[in-house]
């Protein structure tokens, strides 16, 4: 029961929205499509749903050609960024709608709608009108409606993006509970997001997209530990991974002539030459022994301090634990924790990671 896409291309007005997209997705699993705005996430979901016809390429579902099937024959449910519900109907009727369309018996409707409302935490809201609900509740109604359909493909297009920060956090936990409850074993779940932390927390497999292309498909942790290239390293980290051009020569890594570091053990087997080195914000610390960087901006986020630093043409972001009082314009000495240093080759592909491959 696989959903297989091969070489999907969608190129309206000579601009690639999907550029040779291929993947295989398996029933009972959750997939997150991670990418910035305009990466092609929504286009891909709409193509799977049948709302967009690709210019070329194919989609099959359990071996059968899917591309020519009209939307209503695909057994797909979709939850959008905007809270899409029938404003004139009650919560119950909104959720019951797809079942009524299928002429399901009243008793079954009653039972399935109650079950779905319970899953999304809206029992007791059956008779409420949609307008009387908050944004978070409206999005739960949309999710409940997609659950009762028992669709084989459940597509969620950045469903939390229009909610308040705190509500997003709460609903993300709830969604994860629903996804893991076993109810979705008969479906493929595809969830799109711009947020790397959300992607990590949801778990499952991640498809990283940029400018219409799939850059990497792997387990969430694998994408974190082994980003396929520099673009993935930027997209799949918040803050984005710091990337700095430099050279490995002998036992040293040299950046900007002035900055020199001993080559850490996991990079010793790399050939000497030019690389792009990657280091996460959290692996940068203030240390008297380090190199001098100028503070461009210092920001506090409660328990942490972000520092934006510059040295010549290089700028990096550091994430320090706890609140630190650092002035803009100040020169501070900074150390890279090189045991967590990545190396990417001249093309931008991963050359070495600080993590061992799991397999």
């Amino acid at each position, binding site marked *: 029961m696989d959903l297989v896409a091969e070489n999907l291309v969608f190129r309206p007005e000579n601009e690639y929205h999907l550029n040779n997209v291929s993947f295989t997705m398996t029933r009972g699993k959750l997939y997150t499509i991670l990418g910035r705005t305009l990466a092609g996430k929504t286009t891909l979901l709409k193509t799977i749903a049948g709302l967009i016809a690709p210019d070329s390429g194919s989609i099959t579902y359990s071996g059968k050609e899917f591309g020519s099937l009209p939307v209503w024959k695909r057994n797909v449910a979709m939850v959008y960024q905007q809270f899409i519900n029938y404003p004139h109907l009650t919560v119950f009727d909104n959720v019951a709608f797809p079942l009524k369309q299928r002429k399901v018996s009243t008793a079954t409707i009653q039972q399935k709608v109650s079950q779905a409302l319970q899953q999304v935490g809206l029992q007791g809201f059956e008779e409420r009108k949609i307008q009387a609900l908050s944004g978070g509740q409206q999005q739960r109604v949309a999710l409940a409606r997609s659950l009762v359909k028992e669709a084989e493909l459940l597509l969620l297009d950045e469903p939390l993006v229009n909610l308040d920060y*705190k509500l997003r956090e709460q609903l993300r936990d709830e969604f994860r509970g629903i996804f893991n409850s076993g109810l979705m074993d008969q479906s493929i779940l595809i969830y799109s997001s711009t947020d790397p932390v959300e992607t990590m927390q949801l778990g499952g497999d991640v498809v990283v997209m940029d400018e219409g292309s799939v850059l990497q498909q792997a387990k969430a942790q694998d994408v974190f530990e082994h980003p396929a290239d520099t673009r993935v390293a930027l997209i799949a980290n918040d803050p984005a991974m710091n990337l700095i051009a430099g050279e490995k020569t002998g036992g040293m890594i040299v950046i900007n002539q002035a900055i020199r570091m001993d080559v850490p053990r996991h990079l010793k087997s790399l050939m000497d030459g030019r690389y792009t080195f990657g280091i996460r914000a*959290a692996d940068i610390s203030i240390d008297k022994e380090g190199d001098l960087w100028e503070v461009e901006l210092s920001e506090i986020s*409660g328990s942490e301090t972000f520092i934006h630093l510059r040295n010549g043409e290089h700028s990096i972001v550091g994430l320090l634990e706890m609140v630190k009082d650092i002035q803009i314009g100040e020169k501070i000495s900074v150390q890279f924790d090189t045991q967590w240093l990545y190396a990417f080759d001249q093309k931008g592909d991963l050359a070495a990671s600080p993590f061992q491959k799991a397999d």
Partner: protein
Amino acid sequence: MAKIELNQIAHTYDIDISNPTYALEEFSITWEDGGRYAILGPSGCGKTTMLNIMSGIVHPTQGRILFDGVDVTATDTSNRNIAQVFQFPVIYNTMTVQENLAFPLVCRGVANSRIKEKVDEVAETLGLTNLLRKLALKLTADQKQLISLGRGLVRDDVAAVLMDEPLTVIDPDLKFRLRRKLKEINEKYKLTLIYVTHDQNEAMTFAEQIVVMDKGKIVQVGTPRDLFEKPETTFVGYFIGSPAMNLFKCEVASEDEVLFCGAKFKTSSDLRSVSQSSEVQMGIRSEFIQVASEKSENTIPAKVKMIDDCGNFKLISAQCENFEVKVKVNRQMSISQESLLLKFPAEKCCVYHGEKLV
């Protein structure tokens, strides 16, 4: 550039005011000249209403607004000299960047030479000099938002810049560039900046002082550090910080201790004002809880339920008797055992009585 005072302001949108529901309950606040502020709260808390009252879009049901001591309550928006930046860039797509920036001055009949001087200066500050001849349509979202801001800055007489969720449409990696520009402008022009958002991270990283609102009320005003370390209400503890502050029901045991899960815990609160055995809540941030190696003061055994790898950190969900505890730890910490000993450092434990910090 002005000091803005809101005196005993209250507002209701109800037409019949015999028994109104207040969108903003009575409050007074002063925004100091040149300050960098954020108004933070969930949807419907009244933050946009407060902003609209300052700009004059909404006329308050009650109270007075003073700009540098001058009463402007009855002054309409166009005469208040407020610059506003909205969620989506409001610019003229068919004009060049230069024309967009010059527009407010052209409308006011300012001399051409002065317009050029001002536009060049603002463009330089915002890093838009190379784009002056470009059509606004061709710019990225963050550049467009800079123009919205620039149009406010070209005027000499701006009292304050009010911003309503200005970074919503900006990609995460560009947000910091805009925040940095805002801070530079704040320094350079000594402009009062007021920034409305529901996103705690944006508020914390932008502002010197944050006004937290809930259900039409100001619940706390403080620095990002105050709000994080000493939330004055359980709402602020929940709303600021990710995850929310851990809160546990417990009883007062002595002048600085509570009884939690059968053991006494030392806290940072002076509990003499609360009677013995009163039901209170102990709050502690997940960042401050430590994994201890041996039993000592304020330690408690916990069962690990789940470990979330969030990239930069790990989030442990653990169970202490009937309570769920969230603990944020370094990503590199390996947790293999099912039971842990957790330490709640006394100086980080706050006590809440009736949802307020004791």
